[in-house]
């Protein structure tokens, strides 16, 4: 398969994740969307690395995965804390920054 095929697949996953981030009411649901988007990025990185014959992209994929896991752990911790303080996991209710 060509590089374009892999990039198109990654783009599709990315856009689905984006859609989830924009639409989900639940904060955990939003986090899931973010995970999807990051995955799409990883696919991109690996595909470019392999088609370009350069190992750097693969190394950075390792880094990205680690960072993503950290992000997921922290994000979920924030969700729990948020729930304790505000008694809600619905993103719509979190509007302290409203103008």
């Amino acid at each position, binding site marked *: 398969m060509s590089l374009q095929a892999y990039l198109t697949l990654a783009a599709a996953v990315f856009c689905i994740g*984006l859609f989830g981030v*924009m639409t*989900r009411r639940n904060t955990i649901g939003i986090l899931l969307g973010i995970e999807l988007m990051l995955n799409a990025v990883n696919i991109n990185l690996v595909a470019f690395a392999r088609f370009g014959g350069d190992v750097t992209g693969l190394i950075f994929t390792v880094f990205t995965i680690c960072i993503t896991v950290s992000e997921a752990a922290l994000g979920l911790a924030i969700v729990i804390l948020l729930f304790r303080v505000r008694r809600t996991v619905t*993103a719509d209710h*979190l*509007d302290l*920054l*409203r103008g």
Partner: protein
Amino acid sequence: MMTDPGLLALVALLLPALSFLVLAVAAPLRRLGRPAAWFSILCAGGSLAAAVQAWAAGGDDVSRLLWAWLPAGGGTLASVGVLADADSTLMLTLVALVAFLVQLYSVGYLSDEPPPGLGRYYTYQSLFAFSMMALVLAPNFVQLFIAWELVGLCSYLLIGFWYQKPEAARAATKAFWITKAGDVGLLIGIVLLWRQSGTFDFFELRLLAEGGALPLAGLSLITFCIYLGAVGKSAQFPLHVWLPDAMEGPTPVSALIHAATMVTAGVYLLTRTEWLFALTPEVLAVVAWIGAFTALLAAVLACVQDDIKRVLAYSTVSQLGYMMTAIGAGLAAAGFFHLLTHGLFKALLFLGAGAVIHAVHSNDLSHMGGLARRMPHTAIVFLVGTLSLAGIPFFGGFLSKEEILGAVWAGGFVGPFLLLMVVALLTAFYMFRVVFLAFFGEPATAHITATVGAAHAGHPHDPPASMRVPLWILAAMSLGVGISSTMAGQMLQFGPAEREGPAWLMPSAVGVALAGILLAWLTYQRRTIDASSLAAAFGPIRRAALARFWIDDIFEGGYRVGLLGFSRAVGWVDRYLVDGVLNALSAWTLTAGDDVRGMQTGRAQDYVYGVAVGLLVLLLWVQWVLA
């Protein structure tokens, strides 16, 4: 030893500046009062010594010390420095002398002043001495103008020295604004002159003027504008109204600034630029006529004043008119000579009046009387000053007045000459009126006991030594100048021989003065002539004079109608047009802000939505670029 008059003059100039800087910066020293005073006096004394040396060393040499100041286009637009010649060093000596004596005198006069106030007073005095000397020694119009404004500032500060008094604050503002009106003219004149000649420097201008290289077209306007500055500063009609009010300041200030030095700056300016005015005889005629008219007007006003300082103030205006007339008649040297003698004896008169006020605690002539017996020193020196002012032989003002009258007659100004003769009569009359009312006759004890009471239980007495010494020095110098000039008589030549007055001039002038004295004696001492019937004989004039010839009212009316009306119109425009537009704009901004704040929902997802839409736009743009 330094013998260059320029350097000596520079020392004389910088000592008061040092004093001012020290007193201005070292606040603790200033607040101590007396130490600050003595420091300032010390500097003034050193300045006087340097000035005398400069004068003695100078002779007819001209010494210029210049430092480039305003660089422009590869050259120097203006420099600062000193121009020490015969006139300026002489004037410098007068300024330094009177400044020194007045500062010495003030220690006694202001002994009741709290220490911080005294320190402030001496700070201003030092600044004034420096500014006035910088004016006198100015080598060009720029430095002259700066110093001119500085002395105006000092005048303002010192008139308003007792700023808690509303009248003093008002008088200070009035003096400042009215002299500023003239200064605008001076500034315009200086700039116009520069445009025509390309230089501010007196020396170069003089070479141009005397070489005939100065274009005559428009020069009348320039000299008239410069003269306007002198009108404001030297209290010529119609801008003389500030000087009588300036008497609200402490009396030594009146002696120094508003009699001996600053108000004569206008006369000095015209003397300095005599060669320039010589090119415009029509402006000189205006100067002469206005000078003579001012002299008469002020003399009439002086006759009806009951405040001893106001009499002296109007007398100063009158004498300034004399000097201006001499300059207008083309003999600036005579005017300058009178400036110097007048500086001596008018400072003496003011300081004498200060001594009287110090003793009686009132400015009002009706509260004085019979003081000659109680204050013999003051009475004698005041009499010397009065005789000098009246122009009696062997006294200070005699020869200078003769010179002026001779010059005006010889210049063909018959009208001003007659006016000046009337003024001579009036001068003698009103000054001796003061003398007889204050120093002779019955003492007005009722007032003294009533107001002074227990605090000054004793009778009025002569002032302390620190005040008496300056009085005697000035009296001695007035007499000395008078005697030497009278004896030397015709040997002193202040101009070409053909400009000397005719032989009948001297006897008639002295006769007129003696007639004035006699009239005052008959009216106020012998009471042969009833003062009220004399007043009745001049009823309308007296009424007009009491109303100050309505000049102040005209200014005030002009201010009310013109300036206030204009201010109201401008205020309306500001309040309704300018503010209206701004208010509309701000209201619009507020509404718009209210409308768009809804965009900030505070929900993170909405922002993500916005980011996604932004990404979309970016991609569309990329597509468009690629296409």
